C-alpha cells in the first residue's frame, strides 16, 4: 500500500506539491518511486526557470528507465534540491521529505485546486492498476 500523505496535492503524472503561501514544494510520490525502482540520477532545472503545468522540468532515472518529471502547476523555480545530485537514493527512501525536488513561486489561476487530494489520488492509482 502506497504512502499518500493527507496534506499534499497530487497530479496525474504522480507528482506531489505542498503549498505554503505562494510557494509550492514539488516531488514524486511514493507510488512513483516504487514503480521506478532504485533511482540513480535526478536531473533538475535551474533557479529562475519557468514551467507551465504538465511541462517537463527534469527527469529521474533508474538503472534501466528514464522518466520525465512534470510540473503540477505553473510557476518559477525558486529553489532546487541540490543534495539529490549526490544522493539520488533519497528519492526511494524519503520521497515526501528529504527528496523534495524543486520549490516554485506558483502563478495565480487556481491550478492547485484542480489537483487531486490524497483520497482521489489513491483511487486514481487503483484505477490505473486495473
Amino acid at each position, binding site marked *: 500500500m502506497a504512502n499518500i500523505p493527507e496534506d499534499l496535492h497530487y497530479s496525474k503524472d504522480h507528482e506531489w506539491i505542498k503549498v505554503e503561501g505562494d510557494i509550492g514544494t514539488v516531488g514524486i510520490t511514493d507510488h512513483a518511486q516504487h514503480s521506478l*525502482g*532504485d*533511482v*540513480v*540520477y535526478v536531473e533538475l532545472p535551474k533557479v529562475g526557470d519557468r514551467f507551465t503545468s504538465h511541462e517537463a522540468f527534469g527527469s529521474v*532515472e*533508474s*538503472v*534501466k528507465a528514464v522518466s520525465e518529471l512534470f510540473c503540477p502547476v505553473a510557476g518559477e523555480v525558486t529553489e532546487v534540491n541540490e543534495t539529490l545530485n549526490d544522493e*539520488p*537514493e533519497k528519492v526511494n527512501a524519503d520521497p515526501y521529505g528529504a527528496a523534495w525536488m524543486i520549490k516554485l513561486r506558483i502563478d495565480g489561476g487556481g491550478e492547485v485546486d484542480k489537483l487531486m487530494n490524497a483520497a482521489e489520488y489513491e483511487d486514481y492509482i487503483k484505477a490505473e492498476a486495473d
Partner: protein
Amino acid sequence: MTTPKATTHVTQNEALIFERSQTGRCGYRLPALDVDETPIDELIPSNLRRDDDLAGVPEVSEPDVVRHFTRISTWNYNIDLGMYPLGSCTMKYNSRLNERVARIAGFANLHPLASERDAQGALEVIYELQQHLAEITGLPGISLQPAAGAHGEMTGVMIIRAYLDARDGEASSKRRVMLIPDSAHGTNPASAHLSGFTVKTVRSTPEGQTDLDALRDLCSAGDVAGLMLTNPNTVGLFEKNIREICRIVHDAGGLVYMDGANMNALVGWARPGDMGVDVIHLNLHKTFSTPHGGGGPGSGPCCCTKELEPFLPVPRVVRGGDGFKVDYDQPESIGRVKAFYGNFGMHLRALAYILTHGRDGLREATEAAVLNARVIAEGLTSDYERPFSDPPMHEVVFTDKRQGRKGVNTLDIAKRLIDYGFHPMTIYFPLIVQGAMLIEPTESVGRQEIQQFVEAMRAIAREAQEDPELVRTAPHTTKIGRLDEAAAARKPILRWKPEEKSATA
C-alpha cells in the same frame, strides 16, 4: 540452498592488469633502431611532447598478459561452449575457417588506400558479396559500408530522406514523420532521429501483428516519410499482412524500411524485395555468422531497390570493363558513412559463409533455425505463458506471468538458466510484452541440446513453484553474484586510477 562460490582460486580472482603492473617488466622487443638517431628536441619541441612518462600504463611480461586474458576469458559464456539463445541476436556458430580466410596476408595486409589496380582481389570480394546479398534480399542496390546494424539503419533512413527530398523538392519538408511499431528495437527511433525525423508509434494487435487500422490512420495525415518494420517482428512472428502494410505506406507516399535483424528466418525462403520493402539493412554478424566478438565488430550492409540506388553511400564498388572499380561519381548519394569501405574483414567472413553453405545450405540453415524455435515453443508452452498463439519463426517469446505469482520474475529465470549451463535469453524485450523472454536457438544447436534447454526451463518452472527463493537468488554457480547496478550508476567508476590502491578504494 546456495552453492558456495570459489573465493581463493587464483583464476577466479585475476586482478586488473594495472594492479599487476611492476616497474621494469616488459613484454615486447623491437629490433634496434636502424637509422641515425636525431636528438628528439630537433624533431619535436618539448612543449609538444608528453611529460607524464605514460604514468599508469602497465608494465607486465608476455606470460603475465597471456595468463591475464586467459583467466578472465574463462568468466565468459560463449557460443562454442553451448547454446546462447539471445533473442534477436542470432548467436550461431562462427566457423574457424572464416577466421582463417580473413587472416590471409593478401587481405589482412592490404591497405585501404592501395590503388584499384593493386587491390582487385579485395574489390572482387566486395563485389561478389554485394551480388549474393542482392540475390538473397531481392534488392539490387547495395552498399557494404555501414559498420553495424544501427549504422545500416541510419544509412537506410538517410536514403529515404534523400529520395523524398529529390522526389518532392520543397514539399518534402512536410514529410518528417517516421512510423515505428511499438515492438521495435531502440535503434530504430534513434536512427530515425539522426536523420531529422520525428517518430510516431504504430501499435500492435493482441495477436502480435502490426495494427493495420492504426497504420492507415497514421498514414492519412500526409506527413509520413516511411515505416521502419522488423520482419519477422520482434515477437518472432511473420508480419502476415506485409504486402498490405507496404501498400498502405506506399499509397501514402512513404517508403518501407525493413530492419533485417531477423533475416535468419527468411534466407532462401522469402525475400524482402518481393514483399514490397524498399530498403533494408542486414546484420552480417547475425545472419551471416561473422563473430559477435563480445559486442562487435559487426557489419550492416544496406540493400535497396533500383529506384533508391543513386542515394547509396559513396564510394560504390562496381564492375568496369577491365576489372573492379571504386566509383565516386554518385551525385545524389547521401555521402559517406564511414572511412574506407566498411568492415572488410567481416565481408570476407560473410562471403565465406555463403560460399560454404551454398544455395541449398543457406535454405536448410533457415529451416533448421525455424524448426528449433518451433520445438522450443512446443516444449515450453505447458510451463510458461506464451502471449501469441501463431506459430513462431526463428524465435519465440514467453513471459513470466505464471511464475510471477510466486514472486519469480523474468530476470530470476534468466539468472537461474545460467546455473543450468545456458546463456540467458533476451529479457524484457520487446517492450510491449511484459516480462518478455525472447528465445532464439539458431540452427547451430542439435536436437539433444534443444531438449536439454527445454528441460532446464521446465525444471526452473518447477523450482519457481517449489523453491522460489532458489530462483530469486540465482545464479549460484558463477564467479560473482548479482551486482548492485544501482550503486554502480549512482557513483560511476569508469576507469582505474593509479593514486588509489585499486578501483575499489
